[in-house]
């Protein structure tokens, strides 16, 4: 499980760095919005998708996969 924790920590660092980079480049992104709509749309979509995916992946690494499986077994799939 050590590799999961290391990977999660590295990913979280990357997310924080990426988040800070985007927020600190606000003038550039605002400029892009005014000059090139297509690039702005592409950048906005990619930024939101990348952050969403990275955060989702980080949570997957942080949460122990056994926990969800065990809980499902404990509760039973009563509705199946």
């Amino acid at each position, binding site marked *: 499980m050590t590799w999961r924790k290391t990977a999660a920590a590295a990913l979280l660092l990357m997310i924080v760095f990426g988040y800070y980079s985007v927020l600190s480049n606000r003038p550039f992104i605002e400029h892009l919005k005014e000059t090139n709509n297509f690039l702005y749309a592409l950048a906005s979509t990619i930024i939101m998708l990348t952050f*969403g995916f990275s*955060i989702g992946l980080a949570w997957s690494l942080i949460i122990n996969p056994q926990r969800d499986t065990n809980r499902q077994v404990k509760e039973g799939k009563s*509705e199946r």
Partner: protein
Amino acid sequence: MLTFDFFMIIPLVLMGFLVGVLSGFFGFGGGFIITPFLFTSGLPMNVAVGTSIAQIMGTAVIATMRHRRLKNVDVKLGLITTTGAIVGVEIGAQLIEHLKRLSLEVLDFSVSLVYVFLLGTISTFMSWEAWKSKRRGKAENPKNRTYKIARHIKIPPMISLSESGISSISFWLILSLGLVTGVTAGFVGAGGGFLQVPLLIYLIGCRTTVAVGTNLFGMLIASIYACFSHALKGNVDIFAALYMLAGSAVGTQIGVSATKHVKEENLRLAFGACVGSIALSVAFEFLSRAYLIRFLGLLSQAVLVLTVFSLSSFIIIQGLRLRERFK
């Protein structure tokens, strides 16, 4: 353009958190909460709508990934319903255009009436059904009664949905379900989750958690296109969306985790309560505009705020309480 100081960022992050909790738990996008919030924060309506879609997309990625891990996402079912929904949205939009040509008053009245009627019916039916299951004291699958209708429709091709545990179902039935959701979503201007989740549970026979996860997956696909389209028109404030995403990153995990701790009938009961409150809020808002009663407008907002806070608290407390029990 918003000025992002401390007093703007904190409400954005908090709103993202609350919407994330609801989104992960119910499979909603949360546009009905975010859009008015951003509008009252100072964004023009078109930017508020675009930004809320961008935030919904980010939240949907996180929630879908977690639901997928919990085996709550039926990809095949999600893809078919989304295809139907895309066609349906266009039909709904055409209906709107037709009514707009008749009169704006007719349009406003029709949309509000359909919205309130649908939400009211769904809320009443789900609450009644979940309450009955709860009183019986054992988890009852709603498909025992309603899935019979779906089994009688045998128009080929018949497909199997392994994640949903359905061995054979007509492809056209699923596509029609998506179409109906799409027409409604296009007509009333909502995401359609409030209709698709109950239809997946009661018509197709999905488990409640699978219906929520699959709906989120479909919403993710649709919101990618919608976000790009809105951003192309300059309707997305990416920074406001990013601040909200920071909150929803945590909120979504709590919401999704709670679906595993809360009993399915309680989930359906909460879903019914949530949809009922939205119906009440929309009805108050319509009456306020129709009869120019400002008090009803305020009451509508109060109902919405109260619903968001009380349901989020219920989900967080319920999730944490039951988590302790399982330790």
